[in-house]
């Protein structure tokens, strides 16, 4: 059943992405003060929401690994971190691209943008740890780091929030209410991104699972291979 769900999800993703693109570029109304540039919001915000969701899954998977040492939890953590970093990168690229034409500055210590930057840094360091650590211990170390990262998130948020009250800065993306049609388009794109993220995570998960099974089989062979120690 799962096998058939994958292509269905693929088709759904493609459909949603196309629909979302159309709505974002043409269907949604033009924003009052910013004009056409504002349309980047339909990629900026849903990417952020997707990234946060993925990192939350990463945190839960890491905790599960710490408690139960489940390989599947470890793979899920790895996968969501990788895809989460990609979406985070999208946020960090679209942010300045939006800010520059509208407010004339590339960067501002906007709370959402800055929090995303710190999150991106934390998860890139997570991926680096995974790459650099000796393979037997990688899942454990990564899970510990993920917990530390998750504990950090509220502290990051509060520190930047207060920093901004001390040093007022422009807010990218506006803070106020949002036109219902615009919200709808954003949500459509979010759904599209979630499906896309699900698709990529699923593929990556299966790939990693297979990879590990191959390694285990090779290890088992090495074990049974009499007197063949390297």
């Amino acid at each position, binding site marked *: 059943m799962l096998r058939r769900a994958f292509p269905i999800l693929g088709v759904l993703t493609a459909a949603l992405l196309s629909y979302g693109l159309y709505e974002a570029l043409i269907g949604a109304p033009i924003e009052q003060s910013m004009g056409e540039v504002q349309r980047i919001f339909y990629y900026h915000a849903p990417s952020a929401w997707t990234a946060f969701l993925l990192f939350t899954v990463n945190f839960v998977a890491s905790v599960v690994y710490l408690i139960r040492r489940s390989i599947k939890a470890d793979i899920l953590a790895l996968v969501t971190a990788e895809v989460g970093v990609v979406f985070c990168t999208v946020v960090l690229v679209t942010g300045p691209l939006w800010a520059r034409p509208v407010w004339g500055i590339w960067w501002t210590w906007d709370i959402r943008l800055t929090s995303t930057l710190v999150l991106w840094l934390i998860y890139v360091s997570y991926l680096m740890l995974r790459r650099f650590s000796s*393979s*037997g211990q990688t899942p454990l170390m990564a899970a510990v780091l993920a917990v530390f990262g998750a504990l950090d998130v509220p502290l990051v948020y509060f520190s930047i929030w207060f920093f901004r009250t001390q040093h007022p800065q422009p807010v990218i993306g506006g803070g106020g209410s949002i036109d219902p049609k615009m919200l709808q388009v954003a949500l459509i794109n979010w759904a599209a991104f979630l499906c896309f993220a699900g698709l990529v995570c699923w593929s990556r998960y299966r790939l990693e699972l297979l990879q590990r099974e191959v*390694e285990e089989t090779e*290890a088992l062979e090495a*074990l049974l291979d*009499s*007197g*063949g*120690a*390297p």
Partner: protein
Amino acid sequence: MNQSLHAAANPIIVIHDLVKQFGRFAALRGVSAEFVAGRLYAIVGENGAGKTTLLRSLAGLTQPTRGSISMLGTTDLRSVCRQLGYMAHPSLLYDEMGGMENLRYFARLYEIQDDERCARTISAVGLDPTLIRPVGQYSQGMRQRMSLARALIHDPKVLLLDEPFSNVDARSARQMTYLLTQLRDAGKTIFVVTHQASQLEHAADEFVHMEAGVIVRRTREWMTAEAP
């Protein structure tokens, strides 16, 4: 395997189908054995045979991939760690401190705060407790003996020694061997991993031969024809 070597005495260490893999490399490929108390076992074999991995598994420093180790009645090695003494080729000592200072500190890890006892243990391994020279300046023989003192300070029932005679002068090696037999006679169970099995020819109760991650035979003598 020569089963008749373990008497009817209850084994204090039971290893069952122990497997340890580091990625694709299988250091231990299913080791099963029983060891009784009050014996000196010499674990011998070529490089890569799995001797050190076996010893570290007994010490609880390495978690098995599969299989189990039961020591002094329990599979939770952490709970009996007070009964274990471990020594390896690196000295496990601080180079910058003197012998007595080192021992005082490591004794603390076992909640022992008895200078007298530290001094006695140092003397027992044939060293001078009043020597203030930092351990980093000791000869290899002295360093190994001090490391043995560290492993003995809490009077463990089981001693695990990995290559204690490596690069050690003949006299120190003889002294250590004699000390080990005394400890064995006092009831301790001792495992010595070594390349120099000849050193223990007259001291060891049993030689455990390992090859490619398994125990291939156990003999009473070092040089002996393979059992039928």
